[in-house]
C-alpha cells in the first residue's frame, strides 16, 4: 500500500527527487502521520498494557476512552494530557503524544501547563494532578482547552 511505504523507500525517493516540493507532493500520503488512535494503541501494545487500564488511570470515562482507542472520537488537548497520565509518561513523552494528536505542546511559561509538567515529572496520578490544579485555582483537566 502506498500509504505504508518503508522508511528506506522514502529515503531512496528523497535522494532521487529533483527538489523538495516534488518529493513532498509525490509522497504526501506516506508522510502523513498515523492516526492518533493507532499511535496510542501501538503505545499500549509496547507497554504490554490493555487500553482498559490506561483509560482507567487517565480518569477518562470508559466508553469515551475506548472511542479514543478505536478512532471514533478525537481527543481534546486535555484528554491527551490525561492519556499521558494514564500511560505514566514523563513530560517529554507527553509532548510527543500531544504532537502526535496535533495539539499544542505543554508550555512551561503558562502556569497551568507548568503544573501539568510538574505533575508528569513527579509521576503522580491524574487524581493528584487534578487536586493540585484545583488548589492553585486552575481549570481542571477536561474543563478547558482549544478545538476538540
Amino acid at each position, binding site marked *: 500500500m502506498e500509504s505504508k511505504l518503508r522508511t528506506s523507500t522514502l529515503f531512496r525517493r528523497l535522494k532521487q527527487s529533483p527538489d523538495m516540493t516534488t518529493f513532498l507532493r509525490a509522497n504526501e500520503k506516506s508522510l502523513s502521520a498515523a492516526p492518533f488512535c493507532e499511535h496510542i494503541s501501538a503505545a499500549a501494545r509496547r507497554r504490554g498494557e490493555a487500553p482498559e487500564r490506561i483509560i482507567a488511570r487517565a480518569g477518562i470515562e470508559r466508553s469515551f476512552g475506548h472511542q479514543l482507542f478505536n478512532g471514533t472520537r478525537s481527543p481534546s488537548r486535555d484528554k491527551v494530557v490525561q492519556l499521558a497520565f494514564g500511560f505514566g509518561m514523563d513530560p517529554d513523552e507527553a509532548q510527543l503524544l500531544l504532537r502526535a494528536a496535533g495539539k499544542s505542546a505543554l508550555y512551561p511559561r*503558562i*502556569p*497551568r501547563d507548568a503544573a501539568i509538567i*510538574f505533575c508528569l515529572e513527579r509521576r503522580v496520578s491524574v487524581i493528584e494532578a487534578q487536586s*493540585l490544579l484545583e488548589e*492553585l485555582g486552575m481549570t481542571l483537566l477536561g474543563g478547558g*482547552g482549544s478545538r476538540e
Partner: protein
Amino acid sequence: MSELSDEFTDRFGQSAYPAGFLDRFEPLECLGSSAQGETLLVRERSTGEKFVAKCYPRSPEREASAEGSGLLTGLEHPGLPRFAGEFLSETMRCVVRQYREGAPLSQFVQENTVTTAQLISFGAQLCDILTYLHSQTPPVIHRDVKPQNIIVGPDGRVSLIDFGIARSYRAGARSDTACYGTEAFSPPEQYGFSQTDCRSDIYSLGVVLCWVLTRRTDPADAAKGAENRSVAKILRRCTAFDPKNRYADARAVRRALLRARPEIAARRRFLSGLCAGVLLAGLVFGGVKLYEKLTYSPFTDSGYVNTMQTDPAVVADAVAFLKQRHGATDLFDNTDDYATVGWVKDILVDLYRLDETYVRAKPLDDSAPHESDHNFLPWAQGDEQYMNYYDCAYIVVKLFWPDKVADWSSLRDDNGEYPGSRVADAFLVKNGLRDGVVRPTDLMKGELAILFANTERFYLSQR
C-alpha cells in the same frame, strides 16, 4: 496547601505575565510562539469564555506598531475578533481579543474541497474586512494576510486574526522600516521596495486565494491553475508586482469576485448569448429591410403606389398585373388618353365580367343619384364624360366590396359629394390606396389602371 502545591509554588510562583492579565484570565494553552511573542488561548475566570491573548516583550519598535499604539482597540467588525483588553507589565504587553471558533484556512483546505463558489465567498468576506481596515483613519494595513491567520467558522463565516505586524499607513513614509510578514504571501514592497499600503493586503489576499485553489503561492503559476478564467484574471491583477497595476481597493476586488460567481457568470453568458441573438436578428431584419428599400420596385410584394401618377413604368406594371389577372385586353393600349365613363364601363364588363345591362343602365329616376339593383352607377352620366377621382373611388370599391358604398351610417353631413363616393374614398385612404391624390379630375387611363391594380391587390391580400 498540599506538599505538592507548596513545592510547585516555590518553583514556579513567579510569572512574567502582567498581574492584571492573570487576575482576569487563566492561560490554558500556547497556540504559537516566536521571538516576537506568544499567542495564548485564555479563559476568562468570571465567565469561562475563551479569548486569545497576544503577549509581546515590550520594545520601542513594537510600541510603534498599530497593535502597540492602541489603533486597533476600537475596531468593530464581524470579521475581526473583538478587542477585550490590554495589559502591561514592565516587560510585557498582552492584548486580548475574542476567540473565534473554527479552523484556520490552512487546515480547512486540507480537510475540505473548496468549491469556486466557496472560494469567492471567502474572498469577498476578506475584502469586506480589508475594506473596513483600510477605511480607518489612518488606514490600518494588516500586512500578514495568510491562510494561518484566516479562521473559517462552522457557519462558513471568515475572520481575520493576528494583528501582530499590522501598521497604519503613514503618508510620506518612503518604505517600511522593518521587514515582516510571511514570505510567500507578502508583496514585493514589504521587503523594503516601498512603503506598504492597502494594495499590499490585496496582493496577499490574491496569493491566499491562489493557494486555496492550487496549493501554490507563486502567483504566475497559481493563476494558471484556476479553472474559472474570471477568477484567474482577478488573482493575476491582485498579485501584480507593481502596486499600481493591482486593484485600487478591496471593494473593487470584492465587486470583481462577486461578478465571477459561477451562477452570475452563467447568467452573464446566457444574457450575452441572448443579446448576440437579438443583435443578429436585428441585423438580419435591418438588412432585409434595407435590401427591400434598395431593390424596391412598384407593385412588388404589397407595395401600393401613388395612385395619381403617369410614370410609364408604374402604369406598365399595373397594366401587366391587370392583364395577368383578367386576360389579354386592348383597353389599356392608350394609357395617356383621358378615361371616359364608357371606357370604365367597358373595363367592368370586359375585364371584371359584370352584367352588361346592369353596368350600362342609367338610373330610372335621374333627378338624384341613388343606389339600385337596376343600375351599377348611381349617376346618369353620358359615356363620353371624363372620369373624376370620386366616381372612380366609388367604382373600384363597389367592384370588390359592394356593401361598403351603400353604408353611409358613418357620414355626418353631406358636403356635396355623393355619400357612396365619400365612404369609398375614406376606405381607400384608410388602407393607403389613395396616396398622391389631391382631388383630381379628368383622370388618365394609366392612373385608373393603377387605382384598379392597387385596389385589387389589396382585395387579394385581405382574402
